[in-house]
């Protein structure tokens, strides 16, 4: 009995140490979290049309991909300008027009044909980690290289849809298609 309680104490200390020490060993982060955070930042540095800013409804950030559920839910207590953010998980294109921002993950490549047609010339910011997304007609493509995230911007598509993105953001881009 005594032995058990000693070992319990020992293990408890180990556990506590583990909790404290392990997370400190690396500054690395889950790619899912980072992509959600990037998407939010892109939205923040976008100049939205006056008409959208005058609306009082919440900002709708939509995403595809079940595995991004937790990462995007973290955005739901954020704000853009003065309005709160609402996060919506989508599984098909039919409800896309209500969104202000759409993130589509690499597993949903098959949906991009209809998605890009649905948002064409609309003030909806499209972000994805699908390779070639910017080439397909998406606005911002997140790229993974050497354990870092980078992004490419397609200005032609942004301009056609009436969105502008801050020059601060463009400076950080890996590539800007004009």
């Amino acid at each position, binding site marked *: 009995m005594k032995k058990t309680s000693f*070992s319990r104490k020992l293990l408890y200390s180990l*556990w506590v140490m*583990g909790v404290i020490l392990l997370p400190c060993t690396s500054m690395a982060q889950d790619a899912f979290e980072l992509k*959600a955070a990037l998407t939010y930042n892109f939205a923040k540095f976008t100049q939205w049309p006056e008409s959208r800013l005058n609306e009082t409804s919440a900002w709708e950030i939509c995403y595809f991909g079940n595995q991004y559920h*937790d990462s995007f839910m973290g955005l739901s207590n954020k704000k853009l300008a003065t309005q709160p953010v609402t996060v919506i998980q989508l599984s098909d294109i*039919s409800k896309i027009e209500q969104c202000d921002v759409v993130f589509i993950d690499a597993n949903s490549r098959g949906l991009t*044909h209809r998605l890009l047609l649905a948002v064409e010339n609309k003030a909806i910011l499209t972000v994805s980690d699908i*390779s070639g997304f910017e080439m397909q007609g998406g606005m911002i493509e997140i790229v993974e290289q050497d354990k870092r995230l980078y992004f490419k911007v397609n200005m032609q598509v942004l301009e056609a849809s009436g969105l502008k993105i801050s020059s601060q953001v463009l400076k950080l881009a890996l590539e800007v298609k004009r």
Partner: protein
Amino acid sequence: MLKLNITFYTALLGVFASTNSIAAESNSLDLSLQELLNVEVTSVSKQKQPLSNSPAAIYVVTSENIHNSGATSIPQALRDVPGLHVAQIDSQKWAISSRGFNGRYNNKLLVLMDGRTLYSPVFSGVYWEVQDTLMADIERIEVIRGPSAAMWGANAVNGVINIITKHSADTSGGYAELGAGDYEQGFAGFRYGSTLSDNATSRMYVKGHNKDSLEHDQQDLGDYLVGPSTSVDKDNDWTHLQVGGRVDIELETGTSLMLSSDWYRTQMQQTSYYPTLVGPSYLEYNSDEVNSDGFNLLSKFTKALSPTSQYSLQTYYDYAKRDDDWYGFSSETLDIDFQHQLLLGQNHNIVWGLGYRFIKDDFDPSTIIVSSESASTRTNLWSTFVRDEMTLIDDELWLTLATRVEHFDYTGFEIQPNIRLMWQLNKKNNLWASVARAIRTPSRVENNLSVNAQNIPPSVESPLVSIWVAGNENYQSEEIISYELGYRVTPAKKWSFDSTIFYNDYDQLRSALNSTTDFSTFPNYISQYLTFENDLKGHNYGFEFSSMWAATDDLQFKLNYSFIQNEFGENQSQNTDAPEHMLSTMMDWSITDDIDLNLVWRFMGDAYVINTNDLSTKTIDSYHGLDIGLHWAVTPDVLLSAFGKNLLHPAHLEYEGENYQFPYRVGPSYYVKASLTF
């Protein structure tokens, strides 16, 4: 002591669990854009594997699984998929099946690569040795157990294997790999992907390998074969060379075109024995070189018409040629496939399609396989299908109705309907059920070829009897009606379970029970013809289970198990009973940022194969084995790997090929590999 252990592990779990929760809480949302771009990403290549959400028994082999296992061929990548019986026959040949009926010429499994069927229309089945691509270019392999003919077409009786290669935008830059070992005597692969223009990406690859013979043990032969076979060479080594490429073009918003092509040449040593009219054994032993080559060209045009409507038009040409010792064969296939997806209202997701396939073949007969038709035959297959996935209750209940109508030259019209229901009880629990009918169309061998199966030496009572299995132009399709029930549960974020039970009712299965005798060559010998008919029936049932536990982001465990019980009576003349029990456990562990360890331990129960010489049943003993993969990322671009396969168990039979083939043993093997990205 036991208690201590339990507490210790619980504490260890606590440590693992806490790492996760802390990582999740530290908020990257508060970082600036600049800061976000400076954070190192932990799980660059890792894709979390959420359970499938479709009402079918689906298992996905991801590119990461393939990378971890170091699989150098597609069959190797399919080992350990629950419900699949994957067995190596010799260096090149494999028998792969889902839910029983295994065989080198397994005719109840449909295999596709990027929409191109790999199922051979001649002998049925898949020549796995010539189905290849650069393993690093495979995005995923979807394995659907059970019939899904309504979506995929005839011969998707016991399952569909869908090999999907990466989009060329996902393979930009250079990749090279080089490896060698004992069985893997040497392999090399090279790929280069580039951006062709503003709207097009491409890749080219070349790969080749040399694999050693598997060992042959005389103990595995029947007594009557041992003596005369000692003088024949048992080599079964294998050389393969393949080149190919793919181009993806974005034509305009929502419209794309994909073109791909592959060419291969393969050389295999093969030892066979077959019946002759010459005594004393009336068997001839031969070692020869089999040559096979092939070419394919595929195009797929996809266009979105509106946000709720999209179609695709796929066309391909496939050429395959094989020069075997006992027959020669070439086929040309032209396939056109149109599909249209349409969302009607909020509740109907409809896909319908039309397809046409033309096959021209050329058969080169031998003394043991002859054709009653002309050497070259042409067949046409027309098909149409429709599937409606209906949402009955939002986010809770779905009903899928599907059916396919096909017209095939040999058998006429066939209807293959399917009904599926899925009920999402809550976020964690998901139930589905399916009833489906599927058919297996006859191959050329069953329609108009005759195969000399065996010669019975003359005796006092009888002259030499030459036994032939003969094709029958009235031979019909085999039929299955399958009932499935699936349950998926995710009790906690890091745990998932997927299970299926099934009952399959087979009818019109192949039989060869009735014979006619030809006395025209008496007294030299007489010929007995066993004609293919559809007189057998039977059923099987089973249970499949797979589970995953992500202990931490760096440590994952998997357990796959399947059970099957076959009830085909005693007259089963065509196929193999799969092992009743198949089990595999896997561990994927990222020990440090640069070192990964992957372990697989598997157990395969006894399997039963039909001895084609006397139609007796032969037991392939159960075996187990351990695979080890160790990966070291020397730099982000250079990876060194070492693999051990089939360890802990001496060389053993995994399977014995039907008709004329020698048995070979699979034993432990090792290889190392270096891969470079640039």
